[in-house]
């Protein structure tokens, strides 16, 4: 029975030459992804920024992609690792299609596969530096799950990655309810994305909203949110605070 892990079989794995092959930190990153379940399926939102540290290097990165017939994957974190994951999933879906047996991998299966991939990479101390959101519908069953770079995974009615966990989840906990209409779902996601835009340094005002239902996946054209900066408190912010500037 194959129970060996790699650190036993490969003594090189913890010394300097092999170290240059392991991920230490991310380079080009995407920020939050938010997903919610709604009446007909899943709605997901992500902006299109790819940051290189504090520089906003890429402004048209599609961080949500359809997977097979029944799933939608959104990713935050290292963009190149996301592209690697898409490559693995291409192969997974290809083999699934090659069976040609009328069956196809649903969102639960894809989520399980991704969990295993992320966990295994973590075990080898060479993680894929992403937080993934996987949503989909199959046979009327809606599914929304998430996996982190160390393999922590769960499913829920609403999920978010990165800053979305801090800023969007509380809004969703308060305002999400069963059977949201499409319009209400989009409004809710836009509300969360607007808060993220105001408060997340790496957010950009160019986003896409993706929808997956039994019929299939639709990813909107990129658009921007209206923002409001005319708060009176911003006009003379130090009024009333002696000695402040």
């Amino acid at each position, binding site marked *: 029975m194959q*129970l060996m*892990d790699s*650190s036993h079989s490969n003594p090189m794995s913890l010394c*300097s030459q092999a*170290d240059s092959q*392991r991920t*230490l*930190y991310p380079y080009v990153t995407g920020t939050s992804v938010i997903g919610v379940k709604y009446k007909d399926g899943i709605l997901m939102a992500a902006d299109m920024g790819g940051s290189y540290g504090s520089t906003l290097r890429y402004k048209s990165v599609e961080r949500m992609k359809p997977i097979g017939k029944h799933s939608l994957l959104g990713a935050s974190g290292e963009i190149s690792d996301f592209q690697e994951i898409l490559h693995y999933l291409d192969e997974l879906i290809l083999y699934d299609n090659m069976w040609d047996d009328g069956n196809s991998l649903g969102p639960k299966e894809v989520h399980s596969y991704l*969990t295993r991939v992320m*966990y295994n990479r*973590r*075990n080898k*101390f060479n*993680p894929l530096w992403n937080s993934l959101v996987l949503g989909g519908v199959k046979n009327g069953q809606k599914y929304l799950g998430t996996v982190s*770079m*160390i*393999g*922590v*995974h*769960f499913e*829920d*009615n609403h999920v978010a990655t990165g800053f979305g*966990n*801090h800023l969007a*989840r509380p809004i969703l*906990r308060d305002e999400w309810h*069963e059977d949201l209409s499409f319009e209400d779902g989009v409004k809710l996601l836009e509300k969360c994305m607007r808060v993220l835009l105001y408060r997340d340094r790496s957010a950009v005002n160019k986003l896409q909203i993706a929808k997956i239902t039994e019929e299939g996946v639709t990813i909107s054209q990129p658009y921007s949110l209206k923002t409001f900066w005319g708060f009176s408190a911003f006009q003379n912010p130090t009024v009333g605070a002696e000695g402040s500037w």
Partner: protein
Amino acid sequence: MTKQQANWSPYDNNGGSCVAIAGADYCVIAADTRMSTGYNILTRDYSKICKLADKCVMASSGFQADVRALQKHLAARHLIYQHQHNKQMSCPAMAQLLSNTLYYKRFFPYYSFNVLGGLDNEGKGCVFTYDAVGSYEKVGYSSQGSGSTLIMPFLDNQLKSPSPLLLPALDAVTPLSEPEAVDLVKTVFASATERDIYTHTVHPFNTALSNFSLDVLQGDKLEIVILNASGIRREYMDLRKD
């Protein structure tokens, strides 16, 4: 120029507590349903309890990815055992397997704090308690996880077990009845919830609202599994949400 160190940890603590109590002909295993990371709540509806065999249930808290991997591993080994022996694994057998599985990763441990509960071959309740690398012991009751320091003394007091240092070893299985043990578990979690921020469940609602389904009252819960001669039963209880 010093070599760059990795700035990520392969471990995380996703919190929570578990408890198990063995009785003369039953076993109660319970855990909260909150999954957290640092000061954030990831989800309020996550089961830490896994049925490994007909008469053997495991509750684990700690690092969720490792807990899940461990559950999958044991479930797979159990399936093979069934194929090879044409019967279910007994609880003591699964206890040994869990210990060996944990020790196998002694130098990159499963960050999983486990409590195994079930019925032995005579139908008597048994509870096994573990550390992350596989040290284990058969006991009458145990708790693991973030609230265990609060829960364990309370159980020691209420279950008045004989000293584990006595020789010959006295059986610590409680004489309490099954409903009494279930009630004790609910009380124990209600107390732990007051003081441990990582163990949580929702405020109990008054009876007028109890007709509404639990889906509407989205909140952390306490999941209780009871194993006895008639089979397995699952109960939920709402505790504090904050």
